[in-house]
C-alpha cells in the first residue's frame, strides 16, 4: 500500500463515521479541484472535524509504514495530522501545482499545521523540490517545528547538502533537542561538522555551560589531533555519561592516541567491547 492508502486505512478504524465520511468526500473533492482554495479550506478545517487524538499505531502498522516508505516513522502522528496528510497527498499530481500549494500552506500555517507540513516531507513527490523549505524549518526558533524536520524524519539525511545538514545538528544542540532521534546522524557525520562541534563545545566550556554528551558521537570518527585532546578532557573531567560518551567516541577514532587513552580506561573499553555500552544504550539511559 502507498502511504496515502495506509493513512486512510488507519483512520478508517479510528475516526467516527461522520468525520471519516467528511474526510473521504474532501479527499475526492480536492483531488480533482483546480481551485487552490478548496484544499486550503479543508486542510484548515481538519482538527474541527476529526479531533486531535493520538493515532497510536500498532507495531504491525508501523512496520507497514516502513515497508511503504523506507525510514517513514509515523509513530507520533495524531488523527488530525494523518487526515491532513491524506488531503495533501490526494493532490500530489501534478507535482508543480502541489509544490505551489504546499508553499502557500506553509506561508499561512499555524504552529500545528507547520509541524504537520514538515512531518510530511518524506511523502511528497519530487522530494528534491523541498530542500529550501526543509532548511527553513531548521532555521525556526519554534522547537516543535524544528523537531518535526529533525527528529524521526528521514527527509533531511536524504536530501540536505552538507552545510544544511551541519546546521541541523548544531541547531539541535542550540535549542536543547536530543541528537539521537535524528535519522542518519552517523551516516551523515563529516569532518567539517566534527570541527564545528568541537568549536561549539569550547564556546560552552568558556561560558561554564553544559555540553550535551551526544555531541561527541559525531566527532569520534573524525577525531584526530586536538579533537582527541577534547575527548581526553571529557574522559578525565566529565560526568559519568560524558565519560561514557568520550570513550565511545574514542573507540571510533582513527588516531592511535585515542586507542592509548582507551587503554587507560579499561572498564569503559571492556563495556564497549562487550556491547553493554553503546550510543543507543547511553541515550536510552
Amino acid at each position, binding site marked *: 500500500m502507498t502511504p496515502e492508502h495506509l493513512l486512510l486505512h488507519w483512520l478508517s478504524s479510528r475516526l467516527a463515521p461522520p468525520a471519516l465520511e467528511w474526510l473521504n468526500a474532501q479527499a475526492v473533492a480536492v483531488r480533482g479541484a483546480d481551485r487552490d482554495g478548496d484544499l486550503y*479550506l479543508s486542510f484548515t478545517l481538519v482538527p474541527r472535524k476529526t479531533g486531535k487524538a493520538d493515532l497510536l499505531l500498532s507495531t504491525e502498522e508501523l512496520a507497514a509504514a516502513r515497508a511503504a516508505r523506507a525510514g517513514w516513522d509515523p509513530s507520533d502522528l495524531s488523527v488530525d495530522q494523518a487526515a491532513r496528510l491524506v488531503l495533501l497527498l490526494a493532490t500530489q499530481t501534478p507535482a508543480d501545482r502541489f509544490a505551489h500549494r504546499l508553499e502557500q500552506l506553509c*506561508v499561512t500555517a*499555524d*504552529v*500545528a499545521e507547520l509541524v504537520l507540513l514538515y512531518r510530511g516531507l518524506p511523502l511528497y513527490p519530487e522530494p528534491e523540490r523541498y530542500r529550501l523549505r526543509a532548511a527553513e524549518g531548521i532555521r525556526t526558533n*519554534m*522547537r516543535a517545528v524544528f523537531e518535526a524536520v529533525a527528529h524521526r524524519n528521514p527527509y533531511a539525511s536524504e536530501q540536505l547538502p552538507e552545510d544544511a545538514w551541519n546546521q541541523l545538528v548544531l541547531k539541535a544542540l542550540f535549542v536543547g533537542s536530543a541528537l539521537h532521534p535524528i535519522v542518519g546522524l552517523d551516516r551523515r557525520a563529516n569532518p567539517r561538522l566534527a570541527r564545528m562541534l568541537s568549536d561549539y563545545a569550547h564556546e560552552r566550556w568558556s561560558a561554564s555551560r553544559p555540553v550535551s554528551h551526544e555531541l561527541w558521537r559525531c566527532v569520534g570518527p573524525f577525531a584526530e589531533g586536538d579533537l582527541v585532546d577534547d575527548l581526553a578532557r571529557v574522559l578525565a573531567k566529565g560526568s559519568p555519561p560524558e565519560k561514557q560518551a568520550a570513550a565511545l567516541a574514542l573507540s571510533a577514532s582513527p588516531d592511535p592516541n585515542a586507542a592509548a587513552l582507551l587503554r587507560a580506561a579499561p572498564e569503559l573499553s571492556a563495556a564497549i567491547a562487550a556491547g553493554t555500552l553503546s550510543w543507543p544504550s547511553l541515550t536510552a539511559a
Partner: protein
Amino acid sequence: MRYIDPHIHMQARTTDDYERMAAAGIVAVIEPAFWLGQPRTHVGTYIDYLSALVGWERFRAAQFGIRHYCTLGLNSKEANNIALAEQVMDILPRFLLKEGVVAVGEIGYDDQTAAEDRFYREQLELAVDLDMLVMVHTPHRDKRAGTIRSMEVAVEMGMKPERVIIDHNNEETVRDVLDRGFWAGFTLYPNTKMGNERMVEIARQYGSERVFIDSSADWGVSDPLAVPKTAKLMLDRGISKADVEAICYGNALAAYGQSGQFNESDWLDPVPVDQRTLFEGNSVLRGQTPQVSASAAVDQRLAEVAFK
C-alpha cells in the same frame, strides 16, 4: 485568582511582560489583529503579520505558560487603503478558521468613512458565513454615535448581539451596548480615557453581566498588567469576589468560548498533542530555566513582581 486579558497586542511586548503577566495570574490572552502604528503598504506584510499571530507569537506565549489566541481581520484604519484592503479580504478567509482564532476582529469604524463601512460589512458577512464571533473596535472620535452605528450594522448584516463583542466602551456607551444584548469590553488605559478608578465605578453601577475588561496594551504607553491591577483595586473597593472574577475572567471566557476555540481546559488540562506543539521548548529563554509553570507561584510572586 486567574485572569484573562481578552485584548492585548503581545507582538509589541517584551518577554519581561510575559513573565510579569504569568506571575500576576494571567493564564490566557487574546491578540486582535490591528495596525502597527503606521499603515502597511503591501498585502505580503499583512500575510506575514497574520501568520505570526497564529504561529510565532502563540509559541512565544507558551514559553511562559500563557495560552495565546487571536482575532483576525482588516482593521478600520487600513480599510481606507482600498487597493490594499481588497487584497487583504482575498487572503483573510485562509486564516479565519485556524486553530485558536476566536473571532473576526478587531473591525469596525475609525473615521467612519465609506471605505470603512464597506469592509466592516464585508467582514460581518464573512463572519456570518463562517459562523464566527465578531469583535468590534469602537471609534475613539464621535464614539457614542459610532458605537451605535457599529451595533446596528452588525445586526443588519445578520449577527446575533450575543455573538458580538463591543470593545473600548466608556460611561457614555455601556448602557446602549448592554441594553441591546451585546458584550461590553472596557479597555483600561493608563492616564487617558478609561482608567482603573473609573472602571471600579462602572462595575459598581452596571454589575458584572456581559461586562469584561482588557488592557489593549500595544506599542504605545499601556499596561499589560491592567487586568490584575484593576481586579485588585475592585476587591479593595468592596466589589464582590464573584463580580471581579466574572469581569476579569469568566465573562471573557463565556463570550469567546462560544467560538469553540477558547476552552478553559486548554490551560487547566492541556491535551498531550497541544503540549507537543505549543507547551514545549525554551528558545526564547536562551539558556535560562524555563518558567512554564510560573502561574503556580502566583501568590508568592504577585506582590514582589507584578505590582512594583
